[in-house]
């Protein structure tokens, strides 16, 4: 017995000393930081990033300079003397036509256009998408096809008829009219988005809810909605940026005192009277672009998740 014990310990001892793995490579393969692959990859990314960031840099820098400094002509040099005067002027004092209260008027107009348009279009499109995905009704395929075709018709074709319709109803030139137009034009693409998302949700969930006795609205509100946050975020981002950046509908369907921010920006930048105030123009442009920018930064992660959500079964 003692012999066996000794033998065992000896064997264990040998085991511990001898390397358990043979010679040669083992574990993760070392990769040099400066391989040609890495240089290509990060080089391309850096150049692409610079290409997009440079204009922004020029805008920010110019908006912080005084006019005398801008006239020196070196657009890439940082400001020698930082001034926020152009920003204040762009926001509160710049003149468009008869109004001299800056972009602030346009900003609030855009808010009054964007918020109801986004809410109305998403509310309707989500129900549309849900109905098309889960409640196949007679003619639903035809309805869907027509809606999809609607997404591909150029907007310009429909502007004149819509102007007439709004005039006949008596809301031409009002914010209400523009909100309605935005809600309608957002419908095809949003409905498609929501329908495809709801189709990707397991059908048996819907069946189970029906067996449980839930109706159209109960299934939508209690089962589908809580599972749909990502797609609502996607729709919200699409609509906020789309409607905020819209110029065409804004200029066609509103009057000067109800112009959205983009139209007002254009009027400020393109005004032909007096000196071109590049710093004010830059500041005004950044101010106008700020809202979509903030929306992207805040909800970018959810956006990516929502876009990918249709692909992966949850």
């Amino acid at each position: 017995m003692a012999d066996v014990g000794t033998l065992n310990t000896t064997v264990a001892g040998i085991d511990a000393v001898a390397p358990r793995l043979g010679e040669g490579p083992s574990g993760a393969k070392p990769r040099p930081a400066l391989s040609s692959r890495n240089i290509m990859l990060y080089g391309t990314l850096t150049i692409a990033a610079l290409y997009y960031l440079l204009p922004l840099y020029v805008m920010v820098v110019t908006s912080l300079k005084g006019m005398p400094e801008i006239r020196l002509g070196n657009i890439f040099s940082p400001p020698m003397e930082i001034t926020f005067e152009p920003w204040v002027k762009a926001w509160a004092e710049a003149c468009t036509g008869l109004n001299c209260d800056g972009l602030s008027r346009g900003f609030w107009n855009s808010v009054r256009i964007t918020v109801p348009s986004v809410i109305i279009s998403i509310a309707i499109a989500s129900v549309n998408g849900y109905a098309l995905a889960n409640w196949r009704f007679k003619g639903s395929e035809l309805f869907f096809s027509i809606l999809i075709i609607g997404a591909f018709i150029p907007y310009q074709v429909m502007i004149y008829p819509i102007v007439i319709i709004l005039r006949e109803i008596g809301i031409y030139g009002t914010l209400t009219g523009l909100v309605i137009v935005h809600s309608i034009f957002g419908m095809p693409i949003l409905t498609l988005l929501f329908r495809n998302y709801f189709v990707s949700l397991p059908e048996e969930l819907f069946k189970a809810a029906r067996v449980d006795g839930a109706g159209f609205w109960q299934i939508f509100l209690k089962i589908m909605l809580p599972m749909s946050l990502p797609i609502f975020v996607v729709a919200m981002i699409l609509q906020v940026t789309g409607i905020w950046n819209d110029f065409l509908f804004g200029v066609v369907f509103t009057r000067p005192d109800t112009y959205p921010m983009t139209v007002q920006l254009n009027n400020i930048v393109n005004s032909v009277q007096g000196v071109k105030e590049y710093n004010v123009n830059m500041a005004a442009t950044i101010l106008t672009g700020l809202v979509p920018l903030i929306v992207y930064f805040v909800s970018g992660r959810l956006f990516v998740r929502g876009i990918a959500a249709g692909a992966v079964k949850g």
Partner: protein
Amino acid sequence: MNVNSSVSNSSVSIKDLSLNFGAVSVLKDLNLDINDGEFLVLLGSSGCGKSTLLNCIAGLLDASEGQIFIKGKNVTWEEPKDRGIGMVFQSYALYPQMTVEKNLSFGLRVAKVPQAEIDKRVARASEILQIQPLLKRKPAELSGGQRQRVAIGRALVRDVDVFLFDEPLSNLDAKLRSELRVEIKRLHQSLKNTMIYVTHDQIEALTLADRIAIMKSGIIQQLDDPTTIYNRPRNLFVAGFIGSPSMNFLRGELVKSGDGIAFSANGVIFSLAAYDANEVLQPGRKVVLGVRPEHIKVNENVGGEEHDATVDIEEPMGADNLLWLKHAGHTMSVRVNGARRFNVGAKVKLSFDMTVASVFDAESELRL
């Protein structure tokens, strides 16, 4: 008269049910009476219409023609919730954002059942299924077996007459599947509800069912208790579908032998003296003889003539030992006790147990 009596005696009754998707006919003039408290299994390969039939019974699909009665009431046009059914799905279909407790009570809350009653029923269901510790969890935190238990619980709290199961065990691994199978059987024995269970797994069908309805292309091929289905398949399809490995089929014809009738294939004669035929067997008829692997004896006479064969492949499966034999130009599978081992190439004597064999007409494929 006749119609009325059959309706009142049965729990679920389906009359001349047809379902078409456009030009495609999925169910054809289907008639089915399911007795009160019966466990009926709808068995078939994918695309045979078994799930479609279940969805029709549930009211999730509208029938093109025909009627559905549940507890004697015509529910053909009723909403699923008004049919007195509970349904369990293959993918569990638990509401992901709700806790187990909310999942169980959702239907009751929709129906505006008083809270005290909801609590009582949830407590009872979770006790029966032993899921009390899980009540506060979300479905994502449960294992597959636990999820399916909750899904069964959701049908249970609704206090329904008829349970519908749509391949409930197909997403589970083999071990869990056999465990839950036993639990479903136990549940049926204690609740004594009518249960309709769709599966493509013949083991589930044979172990659970009071009666099995074997379906193919929207038509019920045979509706019988598992033993009859297994031993007296009505046609060639049922015979080949049930049993693993499947029944051995020999094509040949009926011949006269002495004073009785026999089956002849490739010149080999099998006496059918012991065969229990449905009709008088006429010599000269082209037929198919079907014998299950366990009804062929190796080196052991069970009556009738003996046939020479050679062992081709041996597949030990633990309790059983499956032999693939060459016999008169056919390959035949034979199941023997696992303790009996054979060498490949060994010569053996086969004896066919004709009392449990099947003979089918080669044309109509019906049992003779």
